[in-house]
């Protein structure tokens, strides 16, 4: 079958799988909502403080939620041997891996976009920056999934890879965090944000083209 058939078959398969084990999808989303809810409780009735750190809170929570969801990307395929079959396919493994990451983002990253505006209002973020928040999440969370995929691919063979995974991946998330939360903050102050958005777009383009190769190579190493 052609490469595009295989590509879409993998996306479809992973979406069906996500539909059939909903808890795995719901957990990162609930985590995201809970962490954000904890801040007003911990900080107390200081609306101005909360408002000024809202972009940071939302982005850090998104980062942690993305991290939490990463393990499910290759774990079950690794455990039941489906990963071997995917890598044995004559199609380029990097593109099949990209299909898996896209499906994974659709079920773990995309839902964050839907609840984020609600939580932003809850933190008192000015409505003028809501659009920018969504835009940064739309550009930034796929980068988190793509970079994270390299980390999971390296650690999926280890029984207790969770801690190493966060040590590997979180530092690489820092640039996305800096530019994304900065853009939201600047937008709130009415300043131009074109530069930050351009950088986020370039991150996304680079990640889409460059991350699948090391991911596929690391997976081949992990199933060894």
């Amino acid at each position, binding site marked *: *079958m052609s490469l595009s*058939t*295989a590509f879409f*078959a*993998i996306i479809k*398969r992973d979406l*069906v*799988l996500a539909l*059939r*084990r909903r808890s795995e999808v719901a957990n990162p989303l609930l985590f995201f909502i809970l962490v954000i809810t904890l801040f007003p409780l911990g900080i107390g009735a200081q609306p101005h403080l909360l408002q000024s750190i809202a972009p940071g809170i939302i982005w850090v929570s998104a980062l942690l939620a993305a991290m939490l969801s990463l393990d499910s990307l290759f774990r*079950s395929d690794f*455990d*039941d*041997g*489906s990963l*071997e*079959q*995917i*890598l*044995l*396919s*004559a*199609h380029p493994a990097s593109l*099949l891996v990209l299909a898996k990451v896209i499906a994974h983002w659709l079920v773990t990253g995309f839902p964050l976009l839907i609840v984020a505006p609600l939580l932003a209002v809850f933190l008192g973020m000015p409505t003028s920056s809501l659009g920018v928040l969504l835009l940064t999440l739309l550009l930034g969370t796929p980068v988190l999934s793509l970079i994270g995929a390299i980390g999971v691919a390296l650690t999926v063979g280890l029984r207790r890879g969770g801690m190493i995974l966060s040590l590997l991946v979180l530092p690489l998330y820092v640039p996305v965090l800096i530019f994304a939360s900065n853009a939201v903050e600047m937008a709130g102050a009415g300043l131009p944000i074109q530069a930050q958005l351009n950088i986020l777009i370039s991150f996304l383009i680079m990640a889409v083209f460059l991350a699948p190769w090391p991911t596929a190579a690391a997976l*081949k190493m992990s*199933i*060894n």
Partner: protein
Amino acid sequence: MSGYVNYSLQANSLSCIRDDRVLFEDLSFTVNAGQVLLLEGKNGSGKTSLLRILCGFREPDAGDLSWCSDALSDSSYYSDLAYVGHLEGVKKELTVYENLKVALALGQAGNYSITEALTRVNLEDFDDMLVGALSAGQKRRLSLARLLMTKNVLWILDEPFTSLDRQGITLIETLMSEHCAQGGMIVLTSHQDLSLQGVNVQRVMLS
């Protein structure tokens, strides 16, 4: 008979070292079209390691492999190969049919359609059942059905008879004989006695 006749798999003085222990060294063999290579040896003698080297999951520590006298990376080897290992490689949350559809999308369409392949392994009534609800033997037959519907010259089977009943074993042996009669080749490990009619079976003993 089909055009598989010119295929051959050659291994030249392979060796495999695992955790400072030499599993095998200087192992050479040739499998030609229509032949079966049966790997024998006790547990831990490196049978699975050898199969994983043949699948390209591991690099041999010395020696090399060639497919139709070309190096593996220069040939169509990976599209000619199908592997059924210890792990079934099927998702238990998907139905039998959905699993085979994904497998078909990853490979090339072969002699059998999905329905025909399922009929062949006596799973025709289970196509809309979740794989999680199948028994171990049925799962095994499902993963072997994958071999039928994709077009692969070389089958690499790691203990294919595990958890199959007597009828299941006879069925798989029939399918293997048919594959060889069409010029296909099979490399397998098994602790069971193999009864393949009219097939050239080579045995390699790993010690």
